[in-house]
């Protein structure tokens, strides 16, 4: 069932339709927020607040076709609020206690790609962790566009609509984001051999 249909059912009073909508969106939204904030507990809180806001304000959504843009915008605004709160209160997440230098240097220790299953799991986790730390170092505007395009699979026009920015700006941010990421990975002593092994 499509989002539009579920929204229509919910607006008619079917609560289960709302639950289905949450079930459909919890994974993409969780991963989107997690890649932006980089902390699971905060991600859970933000997702929860997003769904609460969705429950309260869904009636105000004029065009159900634009639901995905709408929900991403809510989540993104909550992420920005979280950043502000974090900046004002000088909050440091536990998993950020590892210094940037350490975290970036650890990127160079990429394990062998052709490892066996338990090792592969560890390897996968390590790669994810390294990429997470590298992406978190990007400027927010580049990071958001990169995540939306790379991981949420949104079209450039959709991203432009969510962020209310011109299409060229979005593409430019993505270009510079990818370039910066490459630079971060290179500066982190990630040797070319390891990278080429990954690629």
């Amino acid at each position, binding site marked *: 069932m499509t989002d539009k249909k579920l929204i229509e059912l919910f607006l008619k009073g079917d609560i289960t339709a709302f639950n289905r909508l*949450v079930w459909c969106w919890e994974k993409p939204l969780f991963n989107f927020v997690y890649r932006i904030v980089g902390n699971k507990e905060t991600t859970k809180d933000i997702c929860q607040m997003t769904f609460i806001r969705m429950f309260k304000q869904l009636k105000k959504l004029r065009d159900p076709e634009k639901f995905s843009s709408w929900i991403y915008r809510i989540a993104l605004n909550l992420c920005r609020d979280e950043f502000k709160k974090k900046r004002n209160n000088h909050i440091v997440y536990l998993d950020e206690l590892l210094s940037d230098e350490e975290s970036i240097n650890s990127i160079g220790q990429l394990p062998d790609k052709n490892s066996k299953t338990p090792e592969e799991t560890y390897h996968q986790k390590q790669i994810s962790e390294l990429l997470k730390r590298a992406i978190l170092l990007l400027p927010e505007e580049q990071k958001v566009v990169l995540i939306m395009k790379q991981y949420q699979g949104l079209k450039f026009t959709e991203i432009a609509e969510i962020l209310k920015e011109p299409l060229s700006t979005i593409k430019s941010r993505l270009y510079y984001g990818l370039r910066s990421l490459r630079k971060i990975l290179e500066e982190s002593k990630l040797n070319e051999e390891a990278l080429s092994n990954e690629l």
Partner: protein
Amino acid sequence: MNCKDIKENLVSMLYGELEPDKAKQIQSHLKTCSSCRQTYKELKETVKLLERWKDENPEVNFLFVTEPASIWKKWGEKIRQFGWKTCLALGIPMAAVAILLFLAILNFRIHYNNGEWNLSFSLIPRKEEIDQKNEFTKALTELQKETLLLTSRMIKESEYRQKQTFALTLSQFAQNLEKQRQRDLALIEHTLQGLNLSTEGKFAQTNKVLADLIYLTSYTMEKPNQ
């Protein structure tokens, strides 16, 4: 197309969002420009590396909005979920089993015989059980009647005895009272007689003293005249 304008088109091409005509132009530019070619290669490598960060499961139930739905609504939803045919195919046998079990529980029996436990239940109570129950009820009723009769007799007997005892006690009391009265009268009579005798004696003495006194007085009065 110059190298400065190409960056936007490179990312579009990277994600397959470039029109075919423009893609051809970019391709031809990349063939001639080694710098842009290198940039595109690096971008492609970075994107491929980013793909290694897979999505994670949230492992949390974010929100579960429930409404106080009525039982009928819930059943209605379940019927809609499973379909009428499935519900009937499962529901009828389950309902039948439930009814049979309910009836069976009414005649549920646990027996203990020579160290063995026996568990049994039946839909209809056994004939000997019914007869036994009827006989027991009859015997119990008769016993109750007899007990009632005996109790009423005992009460009557007790009342009669109580009356007799009371009458006897009352007559004995009256006799005693009469005897006491006779004794009291005799005592009073005797006392009065004693008192009478004593008074008469004292009267005689007084008369004698008075006579002596009168005589003495008259004698005394006559003597000066002489």
